[in-house]
């Protein structure tokens, strides 16, 4: 990167927009097929009813809500992380921010669809909108689900803005280099960006405001998601630790998702020179901190529960520690802690491969964590006579798989339309801090060894 000219940067980063390999189409077709199958399963679910799932009494929430929390959690990858890095002026962030913010927008959209997918009567989901309805009532503002509705929508709007703003100069760049129809489309998207100092100034100011504003919104979103559970008097749900625990878990899984996405982009879009080991190392360190923090939360949650020895909580506690959910629980501990911590703590292992392995573990582990927060409590809710079990149906499994495919699909499409690394930010970083950056990069790369 140190030796790249602005023209080379343009070339490298805009290449994926014009060059498409056959492998891309194959992958696209596969993901699209999975999404279509999942969509048709959802269609059948609407037609027949939620009976096609494995839900029952008393396990009324399971895979869909797990997916909801998981995807909303992943969304913290981007906007929150990039906003923090922006505010901290971490210069290494520049190639990372956009791919992070895209994760946010897509995973938030996917996550937000789950409360609708999981509804008994999804065609009435619009009743959550506060509008003067013919029913003569407003939504119930006391319901955490309504808080979700507002928080997620706010976060989604904020994230989209946060993503779109710094894309304007890049759209303009593409507009200037394209012709015909593409020129018209990108011209429209660029919203008349001409690169005047005034525009640059306004963009910087807007980004700064957004970066500050989005952080509390992001924190509130996952806090509110946690309150979906913590507000209900269900054993092991009704906990004061849930909000920070969920936020930490969200950032944790978000970073992991970002590392995986970056590694994918690096490989498939040949961005080795832009997404460098240093990025993975730095994100790896962040992931390590979050892993330790996650463990701290789980430990203190479990410890206080166990020490309190309240009988209803204990029946949930033991079914996760030793009972039928124990295999999942210990898998989660392995994936979220035992696996990533050594990899990320030992400098030699904190390579790109290492961080990706740790991240895959974390993503799996965090999905299981959400499942374990939701389901065991419901299977062991108070009166033992009405305890239950849960087994997902194929519909739930396929719809879950479909959302992962949808994420990949959206990401692939996005990377073909917009430079996944912010071109102007990279250039700006280079021109402003070239010398400074060079010394840092040289030093850290010598430290980390060759890629």
């Amino acid at each position, binding site marked *: 990167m140190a030796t790249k000219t602005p023209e080379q940067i343009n070339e490298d980063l805009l290449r994926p927009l014009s060059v498409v390999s056959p492998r891309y189409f194959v992958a696209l077709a596969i993901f699209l097929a999975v999404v279509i199958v999942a969509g048709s399963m959802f269609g059948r679910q609407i037609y*027949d*009813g*939620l*009976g096609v*799932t*494995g*839900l*029952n*009494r*008393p*396990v*009324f*929430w399971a895979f869909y809500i797990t997916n909801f929390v998981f995807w909303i959690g992943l969304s913290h990858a981007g906007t929150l992380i990039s906003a923090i890095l922006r505010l901290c002026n971490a210069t290494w962030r520049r190639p990372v921010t956009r791919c992070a913010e895209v994760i946010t927008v897509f995973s938030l959209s996917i996550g937000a669809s789950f*409360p609708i997918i*999981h*509804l*008994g*009567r*999804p065609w*009435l*989901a619009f*009743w*959550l909108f506060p509008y003067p309805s013919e*029913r003569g*009532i407003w*939504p*119930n503002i*006391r*319901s*955490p*689900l*309504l808080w979700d*509705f507002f928080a997620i929508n706010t976060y989604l709007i904020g994230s989209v803005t946060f993503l779109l703003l710094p894309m304007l100069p890049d759209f303009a760049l593409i507009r200037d280099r394209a012709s015909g129809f593409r020129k018209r489309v990108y011209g429209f998207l660029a919203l008349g960006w001409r690169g005047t100092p005034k525009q640059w100034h306004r963009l910087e100011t807007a980004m700064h405001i957004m970066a500050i504003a989005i952080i509390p919104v992001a924190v509130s979103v996952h806090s509110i998601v946690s309150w*979906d559970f913590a*507000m*209900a*008097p*269900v054993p092991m749900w009704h906990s004061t630790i849930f909000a920070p625990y969920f936020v930490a878990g969200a950032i944790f899984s978000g970073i992991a998702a970002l590392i995986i996405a970056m590694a994918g982009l690096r490989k498939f879009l040949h961005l080795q020179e832009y997404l460098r080991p240093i990025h993975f190392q730095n994100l790896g360190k962040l992931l390590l901190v979050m892993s330790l923090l996650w463990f701290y939360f789980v430990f203190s949650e479990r410890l206080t529960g166990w020490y309190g020895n309240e009988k209803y909580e204990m029946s949930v506690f033991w079914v996760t520690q030793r009972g039928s959910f124990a295999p999942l629980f210990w898998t989660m501990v392995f994936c979220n802690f035992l696996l990533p911590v050594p990899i990320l703590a030992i400098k030699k292992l904190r390579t790109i491969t290492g961080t990706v392995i740790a991240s895959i573990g974390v993503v799996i582990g965090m999905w299981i964590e959400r499942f374990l927060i939701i389901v065991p409590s*419901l299977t062991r*809710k*108070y*009166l*033992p*006579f*009405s305890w*239950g*079990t849960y087994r997902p149906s194929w519909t739930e499994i396929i719809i879950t798989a479909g959302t992962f495919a949808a994420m990949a699909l959206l990401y692939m499409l996005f990377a073909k339309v917009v430079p996944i690394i912010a071109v102007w930010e990279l250039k700006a970083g280079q021109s402003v801090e070239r010398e400074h950056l060079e010394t840092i990069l040289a030093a850290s790369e010598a430290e980390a060894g060759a890629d």
Partner: protein
Amino acid sequence: MGHQWGMVIDLDRCTGCEACVVACHAENNIATVGDKQAAGGRAKHWIRVERYYEGDFPDVKVKFMPVLCQQCDAAPCEPVCPTFASYHTDEGLNGQIYNRCIGTRYCANACPYNVRFFNFYNPAWDKPLDLQLNPDVSVREVGVMEKCTFCLQRIKAAEIEAAAEKRDVKDGEIQPACVQSCPTNAMVFGDLSDPHSRASRMAASSRGNKLMEELGTRPKITYLQRESWNGDENA
């Protein structure tokens, strides 16, 4: 008016016969779900008789406890509903307005007593079993929650009749289907705001307590504990 409907269940009388369970099905148009759905944990019994074994053979003891919606005054099911489908009526009941329900099932999770039931499929009655349906009770469609209403249709009918006759509802005039059928008279229904109603007086019994009251739900059903036999006292 200001009725506060409540119930007293004497566990010393309850024999676990489940007459209440079937009476409730008949009165409230509760659909049977069939063996496959029942195996999946989707059977709907607005009232159930919980059975607990204690001890081992031969010193085994059994306890029966009918559990239905406790019509809590501080019901966890109510605030969580985003559409006010689950709400508190003026007469202290945990109402469930089926038409408002969009099926988040949040109320069912929040309910500590697991007395809320979900329509995983559209209910079906093989013809002509549909002729048994009670016209006073609506049939719930797929995707909505349903629960014990304390036989609201009977309460309303009695209140309307009393209003027409310009009087108050008499104590004992209203009997939910479960109370009506109970062969041992283990259940008593009445107005808890009237200190002289039979239910109020029985609820004040020293044997009375409430199910999982420690959760702060303020249930309106009082359970009278089973007694043990004391020969000398009875002699």
